[in-house]
């Protein structure tokens, strides 16, 4: 497992050395009634940080059950921002909460993350989208627009000669983070950011709504326990075009079905017409055993009974480690922190002791040996073009199928492998002249076990990965690369099948005498557990 490579890195959850100030921005005056007194703080913003109102009526109503002192035609841009001291320019990270009781202000719930990022030299804000909260549905396009309008506000401040943020915001290094419905919202924001209009509403700053223009240099999009497809554009489910990161807890009892997995699966997929062409973006996923939904927001009360989820402090620490690593990597150019995204094991010394994770990483540089997405949907598995080769199953039932690894509409085909005796194997024989393995650093695939009866409950699955060139073969147990955890059972509903990305460095193969330029076969040999069912995807050479 990884870990040694990051031994010299500092824990990204630890505060940095950059001093910072926390200021409130807002659009006063607003006559918040007593029931909404938590929002009165936005009536006294820092004098330099008074904002305008925006018109979101083309996207969202406010609902009539909460006595907001404004209409959807003039909602405020309220927030808290932690600003590093110094000349900058500093990267920008902006957090958005999700749906919650609107009488409780959800916005400050990410200050613990904003403060961390600011201490490392990142301007970090958490924004007020509470006016879209309540028993509403389908408003996540509105959340996206609000998020983008906050970015626009920062751009305006950056461009205003007299403002304290003048010239301090690096508009080419922006991370947007959303939790829950806000997590769905950042996906839409990433999509809308590149559009001239949405649903007939022009995003060029013109009337009647005066929204946009955007076209920000979004570096990455991070979603914490997001929903998916509560809003669907007319063009179809949103496909996130930027680097995408997602984190979700196994004990989530709100978005209990891990809807964001579908968002993740839609992002940066193989183009079957041009399978070697990449869109140049990565995606990464972190599945956190024992994390729940609400504890990622420091304000929200836990939704699970005591003892079901990990302690709040541990869950916040996980968020700080992993979102901190993401921010270090993509906003501060510390690429070495990408190791944490590639393999959560790189953070084992920083994460709360005993925490179990499943992680996935898809690098933009890759050539697939078997991605499984070929039509028609039917067994048997095949080697994916342009790589030439054959697949042979010996003692293992291999079927390509649309398995619902998590609940909901599944669009990704996964290879199901089931065996009932030691020694079964799936052998991929390839023509080495069609597989430029030497261009890459890693052999990667994602593998996960289910709760099906031939997997022993609460026991890691295992198999051997055999890679051969000519007369040399490397045989590496999967468990030497990562644990293949038994699914952590959710509070209710079916268990998810979470595939873990296994990454085998080519240098390790070379040490075993395998010649990357003459790679002949890759085999999954089921010699470590007598029975089992595994789900496998995206076997590839990658970086």
């Amino acid at each position: 497992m990884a870990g040694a490579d990051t031994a010299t890195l500092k824990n990204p959850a630890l505060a940095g050395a950059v001093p910072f100030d926390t200021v409130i921005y807002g659009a006063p005056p607003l006559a918040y009634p007593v029931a909404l007194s938590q929002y009165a703080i936005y009536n006294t913003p820092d004098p330099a940080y008074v904002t305008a109102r925006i018109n979101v009526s083309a996207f969202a109503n406010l609902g009539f059950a909460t006595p907001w002192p404004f209409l959807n035609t003039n909602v405020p841009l309220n927030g808290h921002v932690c600003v590093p001291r110094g000349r900058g320019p500093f990267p920008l990270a902006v957090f958005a909460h999700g749906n919650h009781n609107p009488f409780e202000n959800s916005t400050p719930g990410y200050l613990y993350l904003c403060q961390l990022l600011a201490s490392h030299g990142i301007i970090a804000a958490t924004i007020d989208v509470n006016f879209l909260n309540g028993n509403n549905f389908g408003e996540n396009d509105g959340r996206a627009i609000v998020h983008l309008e906050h970015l626009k506000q920062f751009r305006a401040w950056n461009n205003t000669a007299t403002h304290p943020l003048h010239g301090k915001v690096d508009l080419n290094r922006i991370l947007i983070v959303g939790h829950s419905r806000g997590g769905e919202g950042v996906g839409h924001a990433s999509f809308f950011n590149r559009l001239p209009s949405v649903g007939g509403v022009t995003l060029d700053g013109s009337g009647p709504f005066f929204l946009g223009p955007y076209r920000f240099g979004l570096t990455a999009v991070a979603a914490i326990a997001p929903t998916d497809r509560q809003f669907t554009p007319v063009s179809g489910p949103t496909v996130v075009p930027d680097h995408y990161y997602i984190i979700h807890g196994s004990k989530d009892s709100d978005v209990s079905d891990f809807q964001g997995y579908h968002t993740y699966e839609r992002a940066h997929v193989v183009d079957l017409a041009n399978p070697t062409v990449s869109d140049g973006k990565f995606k990464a996923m972190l599945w956190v055993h024992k994390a729940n939904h609400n504890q990622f927001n420091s304000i929200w009360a836990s939704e699970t009974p005591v003892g079901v989820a990990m302690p709040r402090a541990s869950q916040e620490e996980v968020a700080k480690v992993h979102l901190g690593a993401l921010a270090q990597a993509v906003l501060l150019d510390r690429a070495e922190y990408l190791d944490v995204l590639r393999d959560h094991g790189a953070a084992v010394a920083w994460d709360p002791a005993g925490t179990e994770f499943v992680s996935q990483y898809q690098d933009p540089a890759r050539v697939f040996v078997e991605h499984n997405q070929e039509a028609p949907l039917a067994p048997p598995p095949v080697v994916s073009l342009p790589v030439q080769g054959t697949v042979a199953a010996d003692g293992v039932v291999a079927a390509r199928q649309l398995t619902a690894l998590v609940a909901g509409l599944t669009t990704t085909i996964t290879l199901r492998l089931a065996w009932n005796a030691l020694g079964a194997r799936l052998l991929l024989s390839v023509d080495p002249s069609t597989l430029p393995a030497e261009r890459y650093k890693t052999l990667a695939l994602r593998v996960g076990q289910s709760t099906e009866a031939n997997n022993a409950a609460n026991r890691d699955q295992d198999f051997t990965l055999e890679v051969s060139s000519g007369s040399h073969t490397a045989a590496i147990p999967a468990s030497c690369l990562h644990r293949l955890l038994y699914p952590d059972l959710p509070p209710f509903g079916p268990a998810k099948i979470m595939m873990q990305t296994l990454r085998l460095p080519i240098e390790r193969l070379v040490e075993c005498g395998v010649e990357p330029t003459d790679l002949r076969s890759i085999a999954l040999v089921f010699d470590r557990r007598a029975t089992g069912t595994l789900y496998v995807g995206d076997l590839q050479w990658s970086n």
Partner: protein
Amino acid sequence: MQPPAPPKIAAIEVVAAQPTEADSAAIAQLSAETSRSLPQVAYVVKVRLKTKPPVTSMAWALYVNDVLIPKYWEYEDGIYFTVLDPQFFADHKGKRLRFSQNGVDFFDTGMRLAAPPAPAAASKSKAKAAKSSTGKAARLPLQADVLK
């Protein structure tokens, strides 16, 4: 823990109301797209709930048979959505209202979509609430008044 249960509907009511500015823009766009002249009316479909569900990120998507209501909003007694094209009622009135959280598993509410009020009746019954002076839509109540 138990999975959340779908809300129960107490009553459905459809009220003709004035379109908001955003509604008017949407009506204009819809008219252009369908080459039909749509009335300047927003039909507010009030779905009164026996008990409101807790506010969470997961939502109960509302369907009329298999047609998803893309957006709805909360009001004091439940949720509501607006319909800008009367053809929607011609196509779907009397059909079942259903809730789903995942688009796969559906819960029939036992209620059916009501028909909108006849134009004359709508205007007559709501005329006293109207204060505005211009156009046919101005005789209709404001949505805010309908939802109070």
